[in-house]
């Protein structure tokens, strides 16, 4: 399949998975806090297009897209949301604790900034011939306010580790706008150079732009060029946590929302693909049907999977020797 088509399919798949979760969330059977990434699909897809199974990916609370784009198992993710034994974290973690080692998706965790240094350490090597494995860590604009982010950048730079720091700047941290938290006119990308790390700010809703910029950074990392910091501007469509719209909270305006809705990363790319004759209504429909089938079967699988046996509560507190 055409590479661009793959990008499209990957974005659409994330979109459709999120929509299905949102639809079923109100059934109150996925009983864990869930942060949706609708509107932000282009970043992980663009980045992942350069990643191998053996590369590492890390994320925070809003991690579904990062996990799926890296090839994390959909069944295991949906099962995890349902708190089932077949979940990727055996039901222990929920939406905010995804993990698929086969896919190289190592860990997501909700404490802000928490996985950033972990991503850095995981590509440390005591051998002089550094592996060409790269490590990608996604985080939001809010997470960059945590000191640990700066500590991680500093060490990655000292050791020139192959880490790509990917900030999805969606302008908000929960309901707090950027300017009450950070200097109004600062780019998060500006923080890179302070640590001698090459940085770029770019449009996070244009999957091709993301792909290009991420590709440069990833290739440089593989070549021993060290870390990069990428800031992608994007926008969250739904409420901070949960499946609903939230314009009624009026911490952001309808105009702003409409503007960003019109910059839908999938629609933008779709239009391009139509124009280039890479996609048409019919092939799009086929892709959609294929994805839908996969999603339905994942949900079915998750719903009929058993809950963890309460007797296993203490398992994994300590490693059994």
């Amino acid at each position, binding site marked *: 399949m055409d590479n661009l088509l793959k990008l499209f399919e990957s974005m659409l798949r994330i979109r459709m998975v999120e929509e299905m979760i949102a639809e079923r969330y109100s059934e*109150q059977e996925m*009983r*864990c*806090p*869930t942060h949706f990434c609708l509107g932000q699909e282009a970043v992980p897809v663009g980045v992942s297009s350069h990643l191998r199974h053996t590369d590492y990916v890390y994320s925070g609370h809003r991690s579904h897209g990062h996990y799926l784009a890296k090839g994390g198992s959909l069944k295991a993710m949906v099962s995890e949301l349902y*708190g*089932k034994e077949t*979940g990727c*974290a055996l*039901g*222990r*973690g*929920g*939406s*905010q*604790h995804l993990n698929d080692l086969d896919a190289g998706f190592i860990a997501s*965790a*909700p*404490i*802000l*900034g*928490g996985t950033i240094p972990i991503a850095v350490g995981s590509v440390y090597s005591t051998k002089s011939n550094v592996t060409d494995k790269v490590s990608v860590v996604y985080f939001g604009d*809010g*997470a960059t*306010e*945590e*000191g*640990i982010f700066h500590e991680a950048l500093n060490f990655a730079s000292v050791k020139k580790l192959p880490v790509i720091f990917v900030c999805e700047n969606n302008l908000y*941290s*929960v*309901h*707090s706008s950027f300017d*009450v*938290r*950070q200097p109004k006119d600062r780019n998060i990308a500006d923080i890179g150079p302070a640590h001698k790390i090459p940085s770029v700010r770019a449009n996070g809703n244009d999957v091709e732009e993301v792909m290009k910029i991420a590709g440069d950074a990833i290739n440089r990392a593989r070549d021993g060029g060290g870390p990069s910091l990428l800031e992608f501007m994007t926008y969250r469509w739904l409420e901070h*946590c*949960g499946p609903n719209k939230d314009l009624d*909270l*009026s*911490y952001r305006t309808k105009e702003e929302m409409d503007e960003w809705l019109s910059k839908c990363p999938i629609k933008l790319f779709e239009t391009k693909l139509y124009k280039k004759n890479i996609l048409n209504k019919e092939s799009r429909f086929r892709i959609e049907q294929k994805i839908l089938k996969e999603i339905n079967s994942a949900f079915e699988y998750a719903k009929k999977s058993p*809950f*963890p*046996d*309460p007797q*296993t*509560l*203490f398992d*994994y*507190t300590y490693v059994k020797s």
Partner: protein
Amino acid sequence: MRKIKYFQAIHEAHSQSMEADDNVIILGLGVPGPTGIFGTTKGLVDKFGEARVLDMPSSEQGMTGVALGMTIAGYRPVMIHMRVDFSTLAMDQMVNQVAKWHFMYGGKMKAPMVFRMIIGRGWGQGPQHSQSLQAWFAHIPGFKVLMPTTAYDAKGMLLSAIKDDSPVIIFEHRWLYNVDGIVPKDPYEVNLNSARVLHKGDDITIVATSYMVLEALKASEILSKHGIKPEVIDLRSIVPLDIDTIYKSVKKTGSLVVADTGTINFGISAEIISRLMEMDHSVLRNIPKRIGLPFCPSPTSPSLAEKFFPRANDIILCVCDILDLDKNILSKEGDKEQWHDVPDSSFTGPY
């Protein structure tokens, strides 16, 4: 006798303390925002302005230091962590600076600060979002540590805490926010050093903290129906610890269950039992029992969480064990509900 909810009581305390003293300020992520920390700070920004009802970056450590600095400028900051787990990022500032601030400069500095920390349970909050670390703060000299259960105490203790010149940590349980209680409209203070006997009884003493008090009351109701009369004590404050009230009760009943929201091991119940022993090693006529979180991280799946978080039935079970009673007393009510991870059916998660 006006009844309002726990979260409204907190809101009222904030509002009244800020009216009374221009130097009182509140800060925390989302404090002036549209949901206002579960309603407890909602709208305050309109009344007191953005300079006193402050949003902040997600920089828990740094902002704790900033808040401590504000006390030098004469302010009395109230800092809010939506989950106590987030305070682990601020532990250096809290423990090395704030707690010792008065002592380490020979009394020349003061840190009149309040930290509101929200604890919770259930609905898949999971390993990083459902800890209950009161034992940590209680272990550090310099902090006062409160756990109000009733709406009355939520208001009165917050008002007392804000007036206190020492740093005070208040733990609020998410499942208490919607519970009603009688709350006087005028400002009032609550003595920060007295446990409260909520229910008199001669058979066994149940000491509980925060949300576990409600579970203890449920257990007590069921036990009462079967002729067992527990004495239920709402601990209210961990530091200082009102051991005398507990001792008096245990002296009478000879039996003790302590039910806390935190991890049992090395937790606050151990301190209570030890202090009793230090006062009188033969005060217990039966083995004591501790109820709290078992020794594993908090699981997300409801099937595991149900076993992880203790409820009234667990208290009843302990009482039966201690007093050697027939376990048929156990309430069957709980079992009728499909999910055990919500306080009541109005709660639709996740926060």
